[in-house]
């Protein structure tokens, strides 16, 4: 008599059961990873132990003993290593954020320019993109630094823009505000401004929902904040900041705020390089919206601006955001090339710290951890945004 289908099912040996094999495969892979990881770790610990060391982050609480040329917070060579790490992180984050903002602005402009019907504008933009995309960033940074910023005139012959901005081989000096007695009060005014603009933003979004015609929410939010900031400035009895104008004293400028040639070279290099990629991404995004969408919108009587704002951009954004996220991450990671031109970013300072303390494993682990978490934070934020604008389909 023939065996029935069910009995055959029941008698499969487990090493031929695909359900078991699927799970088993994963377990074996996991074990292999753990064993390999342990082997590597053990290897490192043994090697360190031979040199009489055990991994420890205690060095963070020891005196750093080196200077940092540029910093956003107070720091002296007598401070602890952890303070130096903080200075380094802030330098990296600062140049990355400014770089991301500027390269987005320049990139969007380039992307739109390349699609322009104006022949000259479109050609200039494509020449820019083709050249800048195809030069290695390191070469570009060295070019900006050694080719431009340190070959600028000496301080005595500094180029002046207007009366109080000076550009020389020591960087760019600009007027800077010094807080006066009313500065703290003004900070409260700014806080109120943020709250008010948030309320305006919220209300306008409600208006948009109610009428179906979304107003220019971002624009009005910014206008509200600026209005509060300006009114507050005028209303306070003494202006909250006094201008500190740079003046030439002896061999250098006194007063104002100085951007070093290293910072300027790093920022220019990163922005100009990344903007080329952002430009291509923006162009691709706009072109990804089919011509039929624009025709349908125009045929319905929407004008060119309404079509761009309500039809083209919302659809282009879903194509633009994922690769744009990669470019933001690239820019942040590329900022570590700062070491080549002597800007004290995270990578440069970690190098110095490694020299000083001899703690290679810990310093590199710390650095990788910081870069990784910055990138992950950016990623999470951009993914959240991407999810919000995703299309619903079957």
């Amino acid at each position, binding site marked *: 008599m023939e065996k029935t289908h069910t009995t055959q099912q029941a008698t499969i040996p487990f090493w031929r059961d695909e359900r078991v094999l699927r799970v088993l495969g994963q377990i074996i892979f996991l074990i292999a990873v753990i064993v390999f990881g342990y082997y590597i770790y053990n290897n490192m610990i043994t090697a360190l132990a031979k040199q009489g060391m055990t991994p420890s982050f205690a060095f963070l609480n020891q005196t750093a003993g080196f200077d940092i040329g540029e910093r956003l917070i107070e720091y002296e060579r007598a401070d602890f290593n952890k303070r130096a790490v903080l200075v380094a992180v802030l330098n990296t984050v600062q140049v990355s954020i400014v770089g991301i903002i500027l390269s987005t602005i320049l990139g969007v402009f380039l992307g739109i320019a390349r699609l322009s019907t104006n022949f000259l504008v479109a050609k200039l933009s494509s020449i820019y993109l083709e050249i800048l995309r195809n030069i290695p960033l390191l070469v570009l940074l060295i070019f900006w630094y050694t080719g431009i910023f340190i070959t600028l005139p000496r301080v005595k012959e500094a180029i002046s823009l207007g009366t109080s901005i000076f550009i020389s081989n020591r960087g760019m000096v600009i007027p800077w505000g010094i807080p006066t007695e009313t500065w703290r009060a003004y900070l409260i005014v700014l806080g109120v401004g943020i709250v008010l603009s948030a309320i305006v933003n919220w209300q306008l979004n409600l208006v948009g929902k109610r009428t*179906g015609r979304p107003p220019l929410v971002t624009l009005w939010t910014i206008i509200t904040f600026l209005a509060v900031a300006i009114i507050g400035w005028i209303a306070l009895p003494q202006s909250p900041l006094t201008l500190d104008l740079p003046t030439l004293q002896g061999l250098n400028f006194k007063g104002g705020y100085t951007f070093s040639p290293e910072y300027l070279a790093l920022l220019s290099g990163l922005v100009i390089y990344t903007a080329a990629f952002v430009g291509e991404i923006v162009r691709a995004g706009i072109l990804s919206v089919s011509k039929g969408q624009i025709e349908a919108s125009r045929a319905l009587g929407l004008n060119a601006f309404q079509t761009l704002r309500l039809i083209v951009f919302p659809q282009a954004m879903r194509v633009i955001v994922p690769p744009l996220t990669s470019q933001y991450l690239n820019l942040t990671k590329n900022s570590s090339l700062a070491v080549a031109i002597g800007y004290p970013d995270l990578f440069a300072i970690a190098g110095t710290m490694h020299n000083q303390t001899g703690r290679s494993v810990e310093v590199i682990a710390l650095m990788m951890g910081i870069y990784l978490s910055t990138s992950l934070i950016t990623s999470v934020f951009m993914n959240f945004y991407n999810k919000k604008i995703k299309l619903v389909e079957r």
Partner: protein
Amino acid sequence: MSENNNNDPIIVCQDVHKWYGQFHALRGIDMEVRKGEVIVIFGPSGSGKSTFIRTINRLEEHQSGQIVVDSIELTHDVRNIEAIRKETGMVFQQFNLFPHLTVLQNITLAPLQVHKWKKEKAEEIAMQLLERVGIPEQAEKFPGQLSGGQQQRVAIARALAMQLKIMLFDEPTSALDPEMIKEVLDVMTELAESGMTMLVVTHEMGFARSVADRMFFFDEGQIVESGSPEDIYNNPQEDRTKLFLSQILQH
């Protein structure tokens, strides 16, 4: 109003020419369309029929000749172009619904933005139109969730929401599965019966025969022959028309 008014032409085209580079796409098209007429335009592909109806709302620019829609002449004046676009709606072969907006938002977008209606009014009219095309239950869905036939019916409702006088159909059923063609043609037939002025580029000969007032046969950028459906079907004058009809009707 008066009988006379209804016989006035709402679209007048005189000697319309269009070139794509060296290619002469439209070679002197003359056409007058009266209010409430249903015009079917047919012909082999590449004959200029789509190009022609796209010149009427300026999706394509004509290089010489005259186009007057509802006594507004189509010129380079942006104001005239926008005025004409307010009078004419267009339904495309590929539907061209906005995929990032719901069905309801697709329909209310232009009334809200162009006519500046209140949201309640726009949505009420949108729902009435969805009833009319038979899919009110799809209002909150996105275009990607609908079948082709449903999408095309939304596209018709979207155009109608602008409360216009003229509807242009550019091969509205060519991208649809056979069983969905009927649902779209039914909507178009109902629309024709309601008195809408319609210009339809189509090869749906059954629809043309039962609904069209006049038919135009296009070939190589020219009107080869025109007349009532009976004339065209039973008594075509030109050899090219006979040949084309025999090719499409033998199935």
